[in-house]
């Protein structure tokens, strides 16, 4: 048989019949932005969506090829490859697999700080009824290990959990034993202000492989203003604790989180610089949560979302500058959102998932055995609202928790695919549902998008990040990608391969 070559038209007809695949769109920076179900996006000229719907699009154009390759449409010249699209969508929901991974143990409500924005009730730091009992701990450990997740994280919170160090010491060996029996990987984290940390405690953490997460709100004047304690030395205590923890646990085992108060808003650069000075390689520009005492003290600590967004943008600009100057530090929220936008993968960050991470991805076991859908849910309970109390470790099983009325009500409002204002939003694939936030701020789990602080924040942050993507500055994108991949910024290459 003679071999002959055929022309292009035989393989790619000039005028195919095409059909649309699901996508959402918006106008952005004078263009149209199209996003498909798998989060793949394309900037196209204005009017493209119109031409797609009235079928007047030039099928012989590069634009048509782009739209087809990214599965915004398919045509009669080849397979729509729906199985590939399904795989990509499935990958984006990877975090749904395996059951609840993060298990927060509130081992005590006692704390020696009296922070204005504190999200939970503070109690005088004397031993008492606000510690988790061994019986409750045993039941909570068992419930945690009933999660089908092959790897679980045990996170100690309070109050100040180090004030109940004996409870921590009770829980860790028992959790480890059960994890071994159930063949689960177990990570352990303690969220502490480090004010009462001792070398003995740190040596115990080192031997048990426990990581430390602490609070650092910025430079001394800001940190001490936000976090009052007797002696007015919260900052000094935190820094001392961070250094001692690093010396004993290693640099990688100590992380810090900041909370943005009204007092923080004018100091974005100073806060970033404090993190750089303390040799941290990530910083999370986090708005204050509308829960706990933050609601009562709103006139002093709270602010409008617009002001936070200005703070975020200033902070991010400064962080990028620090990176350009050679110090690698990532902004965590940016890293999370860019992973959603630019990669085929999902993220484990529980506050930014749809279906919402509450209960699915995180459970909170309060000192008294009550189980909540999230840390924010239990903060509401401290304000005497038990809407998101799923049950109690002494009365419930994992099954009854997830099929009780509180959980079912929560789940109904937990998919942004089915929320008014989200269902047709171009950014839906990158965003989330947060029924607890909307209940707390708007009195309704479903929420009202035009007046939602959650929506305002995420819409603006996502648009801001898309402006970087569209601008596609080589240095900026290399920095942002280094945050996503965790790789160093550049490597000096001396020798060729």
């Amino acid at each position: 048989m003679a071999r002959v070559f055929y022309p292009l038209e035989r393989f790619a007809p000039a005028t195919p019949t095409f059909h649309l695949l699901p996508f959402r769109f918006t106008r952005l920076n004078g263009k149209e932005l199209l996003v498909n179900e798998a989060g793949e996006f394309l900037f196209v000229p204005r009017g493209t969506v119109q031409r797609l719907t009235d079928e007047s699009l030039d099928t012989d154009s590069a634009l048509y090829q782009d739209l087809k390759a990214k599965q915004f449409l398919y045509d009669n010249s080849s397979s729509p490859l729906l199985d590939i699209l399904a795989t990509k969508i499935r990958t984006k929901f990877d975090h749904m697999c395996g059951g609840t991974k993060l298990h927060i143990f509130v081992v005590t409500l006692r704390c020696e700080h009296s922070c204005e924005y504190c999200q939970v009730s503070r109690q005088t730091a004397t031993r008492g009824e606000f510690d988790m009992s061994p019986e409750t701990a045993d039941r909570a450990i068992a419930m945690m290990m009933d999660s089908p997740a092959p790897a679980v994280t045990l996170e100690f919170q309070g109050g100040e959990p180090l004030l109940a160090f004996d409870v921590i010491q009770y829980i860790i060996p028992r959790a480890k034993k059960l994890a071994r029996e159930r063949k689960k990987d177990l990570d352990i984290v303690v969220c502490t202000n480090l004010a009462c940390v001792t070398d003995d405690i740190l040596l115990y953490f080192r031997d048990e492989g426990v990581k430390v997460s602490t609070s650092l709100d910025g430079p001394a004047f800001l940190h001490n203003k936000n976090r009052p304690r007797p002696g007015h030395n919260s900052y000094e205590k935190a820094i001392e604790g961070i250094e001692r923890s690093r010396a004993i646990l290693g640099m990688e085992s100590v992380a810090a989180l900041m909370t943005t108060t009204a007092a923080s808003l004018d100091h974005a650069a100073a806060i970033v610089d404090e993190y750089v000075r303390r040799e941290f390689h990530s910083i999370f520009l986090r708005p204050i949560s509308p829960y706990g005492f933050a609601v009562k003290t709103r006139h002093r600590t709270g602010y409008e979302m617009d002001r936070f967004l200005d703070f975020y943008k200033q902070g991010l600009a400064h962080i990028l500058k620090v990176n350009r100057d050679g110090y690698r530090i990532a902004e965590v929220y940016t890293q999370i959102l860019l992973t959603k936008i630019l990669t085929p993968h999902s993220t484990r960050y529980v506050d930014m998932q749809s279906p919402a991470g509450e209960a699915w991805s995180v459970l909170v076991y309060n000192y008294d055995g009550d189980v909540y859908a999230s840390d924010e849910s239990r903060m509401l309970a401290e304000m005497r609202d038990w809407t998101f109390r799923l049950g109690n470790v002494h009365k419930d099983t994992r099954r009854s928790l997830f099929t009780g009325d509180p959980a079912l009500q929560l789940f109904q409002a937990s998919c942004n695919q089915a929320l008014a204002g989200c269902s047709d939003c171009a950014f839906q694939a990158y965003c989330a549902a947060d029924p607890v936030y909307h209940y707390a701020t708007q009195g309704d789990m479903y929420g009202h998008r035009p007046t939602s602080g959650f929506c305002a924040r995420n819409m603006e942050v996502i648009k801001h990040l898309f402006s970087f993507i569209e601008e596609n500055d080589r240095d900026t994108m290399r920095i942002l990608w280094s945050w996503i991949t965790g790789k160093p910024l550049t490597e000096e290459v001396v020798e060729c391969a």
Partner: protein
Amino acid sequence: MRLTTTGVARNIEQGIVGIITTEHLSREKRADRILFLEADEAVCTEDLSGYRALLSRDELQNSPSIPYVHSLRESDYLRDGDIVALEGSPGTVRSLYRPYEQHHHLFVTERCNSNCLMCSQPPKDRDDAEALTKRNLELIRLISAPPPYLTITGGEPTLLGDNLFTLIKQLKASMPNTELHMLTNGRTFAWPDYSRRFAALEHPNISLGIPLYSDFAGDHDFVVQAKGAFDQTIAGFHQASRNGVRVEVRVVLHKLTIPRLTKLVEYIYRNLTFTEHIALMGLEYTGYTPRNIDALWIDPYDYQDELERAVEYLAVRNMNVSIYNHQLCVLRHSLWNYARKSISDWKMLYLPECERCAALSACGGLFQWAIKKHSDHIHTILSLPKTSQGYSKGDRNGRLLGVLATPTR
């Protein structure tokens, strides 16, 4: 270096595979051996029993009774230990395996269900499955020291049907630690059952090298001259990976693939995230390429922008990318870290310009057929750059859910 030579054959009725010996061996060591007489050696033709065959540069005065090829046109390259195949008409000596080389191939069929415009090994429509499989099984048996790497190539290997499974099983049994790389168009792997059966061979060290030429189906199908090939190849990548078979994407760079190269690597990242490696390869001026050269040729120097964008795109995403078949003198320094010495020893050469080149030892050279056509920008590099900015090689691969992560080695 040469792969074949011809001579005058005697007593050869069917193909013979054997190991060359240049020294006369005692009778008990002659099994599997082909005696090669380089010069006018005096040899007693009565004393040749036990050898599989005899090769000689010149014709012997007394013709032996065993299979025999004489008057070889070229023979200087034949060495002790080479495994060769002899064919009767005409008298061909084909080198199948040379232990001292870096790259080793198992050529399994000349048939193919694609007909790529730039195929370096144009397919032939004849059924060679049984004959070549028999030859290859014997070759595998004769390799005494397994090589670290072996490439299974064709043609399209999957067209061998069950014979391919037989070969891979044999390789698994006789050289389990040899890393096998099979060059395939991947279309057959679109059948879920085929991918499952392939995976069920459970070869511990096998991966597929599958070409992809565009993110746009019509363009890919045109390059490979097969309608529906894109759909099958993409499905083949997924089915193979879903069954735990490791895959590599190969892109040949030419005038038809360069325009959408940035979009192609974007497609690879989003759709074939699980690929272990992406090879961006220079065009070979052999096979079909000379016939289609007007449609294909672009000087590599002229696609540096596109190549750099594609490499950087993949590298910042932690994808493992390499450049094959390119000379360092036509690559920007930013790309040197990705250039590999990819051309097999037997088909590689350097040009006169290369002799004094400071980058010679790091450069993979040219295909020998590039002597007829190569970049206009080949030149002598007088001194090496001190450092070059690059990106570290990706060391972990993404996974798509439902498609198993490729095991890390």
